């Protein structure tokens, strides 16, 4: 792809409002927007949810991508929804935009049909909220990119210091 994807505060706030609304209806253990690359845009988790959201996003995007490819092998090019049913928790994944997925983890008390219906209705509004930001808005916020890059470079040097590495007698 080669291009950066930028998410503005206004976009995220709009998306979070929609997720909260959906969360009130479904009482999920976890609900989140993730990218198809496995990054989390935002997520809400119920009290007591012990899952690791980074791992969940990575695995959910991988699982969705793998299942979509299986569908394509069978000539289905319009695969947008996936459901995993477990003993105690179900995972529902629906595609929101080309790059964004909605992931909902919910218990047995929530009916799958309700999740499917409400999540399906919500995807259009979420897609609208996440529509690409105008370039003039993103460029304003990236004007200090050089300062950021220099600062991160220093952090990386400290963090990835080779001092801790062992050197073998080759």
């Amino acid at each position, binding site marked *: 792809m080669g291009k*950066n994807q930028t998410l503005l505060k206004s976009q995220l706030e709009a998306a979070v409002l929609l997720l909260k609304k959906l969360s009130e209806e479904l009482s999920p253990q976890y609900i989140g927007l993730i990218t198809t690359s496995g990054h989390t845009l935002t997520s809400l988790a119920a009290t007591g949810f012990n899952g690791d959201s980074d791992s969940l996003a990575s695995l959910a995007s991988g699982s969705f991508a793998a299942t979509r490819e299986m569908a394509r092998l069978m000539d289905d090019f319009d695969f947008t929804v996936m459901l995993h049913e477990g003993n105690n928790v179900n995972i529902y994944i629906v595609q929101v935009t080309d790059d964004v997925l909605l992931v909902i983890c919910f218990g047995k008390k929530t009916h799958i049909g309700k999740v499917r219906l409400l999540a399906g209705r919500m995807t259009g509004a979420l897609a609208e909220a996440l529509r690409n930001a105008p370039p003039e808005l993103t460029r304003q916020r990236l004007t200090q990119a050089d300062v950021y890059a220099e600062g991160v470079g220093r952090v990386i040097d400290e963090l990835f210091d080779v001092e801790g*590495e062992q050197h073998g007698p080759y």
Partner: protein
Amino acid sequence: MALINLAAGEINYKIVYYGCALGGKTTSIQYVYKKITPQVKGKLVSIATEEERTLYFDFLPLTLDKVRGLKTRFHLYTVPGQPQYNASRKLVIQGIDGIVFVADSQIDRLDDNVEAYLNMWDNLADQGDSPLDLGLVMQYNKRDLTGIFPSADLNDLLNQTDSDWVESCALTGEGVFEALRNVTKQVIARTNAAAEGMAPDPSRA
């Protein structure tokens, strides 16, 4: 592509360890997990076969301190090295920002290295990417063994993009962080360049 989440104050990058089977990709990421400051690392997730060969990917998230109000996050992945899992490799490299190509320095693994390197180009091309547009570092691994190519020769044979290269022994960790440092700086520099490219044209002011 980097995900710049201005609302959350985060920039997310995806770095993938690519290379032939049993070359040292998983060992490298495991070494990073073992040695890096605990506050920085998340859980190491591996989807592996019963023989501990990578089936789909390994995944390790790293979160750096804030700079200019932005938190930097690197998601490290490996691809499965075995050729029969090429479909999985294609999925793992979606949205990629940088690559650490881990080559096995042993002379008898040259064909496998070349095949993996060409496969990397093919798979990136399939999704409209090119190694020329990404951060890329060559990590010449297993330098502790006998029967290996001199690194300069291996570099002549493999490194078609004239990318930076690092000698390593993933088992002991030598070179692993150097390669990671190199590729992370490359991807950040590329984001920086992209941001500068977005700056308003002064001639239009």
